[in-house]
């Protein structure tokens, strides 16, 4: 009987390590599967940006994944690199030169009519100072160089976007810890993608029409339209750095949240970034401008 107990004890004692080993094997397998699933999703998300892995400076410092993200998120198109756009732009530039010539001749004729004092009843009194005419012509000539100003604006937007993004590169390392971040940011990117597509089209449209818009600033009748158009264009250009700024700020803030709450935080951030993009695209900026003017007056006083 003692022998039976001894054998049973022996079997029980030695089955524990076996059971423990089995359990450990299951755990390792589960870990491998989990890591594999994680890696799969990470690869899928990274794959979206893989064609943008050409930023050597960022690649060497932060690796290709972050380099690709950095390039795709701060991407600003160069419309004049496309020969078709360049050719359409030249056609519209010819139109703006035509407007400039019309303005000079028309202004000359109009001023002469006013000087004869035979058209006052129809057109009213005009400011006939030469400086005003020279100013108008100078503005027209400046308007013909609007594409250079637009290119410069695009460069500024690119730098602003890169500046906003560079502050967060340390916090978005492609590690299993940041899996939620990557998944949620991919969802965020898809959500606000429509704004960036609209922005992309508008950048190309403005690249073609910028000289015409700038020339339309000169005559009083079209100045209001041109100003409003330029206002909207500036807002659409600023959409990218502003959206990146708020996203980066959100990511940095989200690091302080408990892990369980982070997905909800990212959903909130996605909604917020969507609203920011919507506001930049179609929002009313009048009260911001009025606030700015009041602030300027307060500072000046």
């Amino acid at each position: 009987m003692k022998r039976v107990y001894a054998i049973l004890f022996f079997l029980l004692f030695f089955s524990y390590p076996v059971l423990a080993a089995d359990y450990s094997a299951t755990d390792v397998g589960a870990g491998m599967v989990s890591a594999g699933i994680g890696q799969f999703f990470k690869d899928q998300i990274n794959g979206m940006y893989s064609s943008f892995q050409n930023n050597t400076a960022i690649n060497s410092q932060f690796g290709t994944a972050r380099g690709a993200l950095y390039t795709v998120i701060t991407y600003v198109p160069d419309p004049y690199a496309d020969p078709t756009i360049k050719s359409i732009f030249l056609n519209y530039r010819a139109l703006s030169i035509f407007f400039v010539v019309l303005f000079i001749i028309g202004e000359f004729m109009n001023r002469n009519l006013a000087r004869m004092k035979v058209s006052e009843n129809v057109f009213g009194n005009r400011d006939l100072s030469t400086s005003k005419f020279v100013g108008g012509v100078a503005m027209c000539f400046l308007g013909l160089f609007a594409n250079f100003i637009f290119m410069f604006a695009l460069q500024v937007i690119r730098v602003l976007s890169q500046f906003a993004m560079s502050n967060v590169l340390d916090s978005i390392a492609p590690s299993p810890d940041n899996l939620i971040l990557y998944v949620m940011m991919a969802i965020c990117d898809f959500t606000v993608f429509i704004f960036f597509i609209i922005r992309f089209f508008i950048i190309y449209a403005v690249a073609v029409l910028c000289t015409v818009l700038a020339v339309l600033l000169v005559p009083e009748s079209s100045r209001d339209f041109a100003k409003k158009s330029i206002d909207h264009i500036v807002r659409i250009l600023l959409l990218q750095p502003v959206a990146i700024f708020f996203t980066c700020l959100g990511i940095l803030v989200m690091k302080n949240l408990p892990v369980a709450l982070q997905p909800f935080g990212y959903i909130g951030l996605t909604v917020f970034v969507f609203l920011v993009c919507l506001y930049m695209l179609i929002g009313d900026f009048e009260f911001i401008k009025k606030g700015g003017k009041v602030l300027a007056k307060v500072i000046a006083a």
Partner: protein
Amino acid sequence: MSKLKKLTWSFAGILLTAGSALAEGDNNVTSNLGPASGVAGDLMFYLKWGSIFVAIATVLILWIRHNLAAHSKKVGDVLQIRDDMKQWFIMGLAVIVSFIFLFQYIIPQLDKFI
């Protein structure tokens, strides 16, 4: 060389340059407008000659008003019309210089950068 000769030569030079600039400009401005070239060409033609007609008419009217004011001894009106004549001349010169600058300098510079 007398001052008058210098002035005449300078003015002739400006007009010749303006003539060549405008001739070049006519081709540059209206030929690249595709389907709108015909309309734009017609508009430019009538506007150009219309402005010249108005400019000449202005000088004539100002001259007549000047003589009438001088005849009726309205010193203020005479001075005002003289100033208008001066402004007319400056304006004409400014238009010519603008066209020279546009077609001889700005457009070639723009073409270089594209």
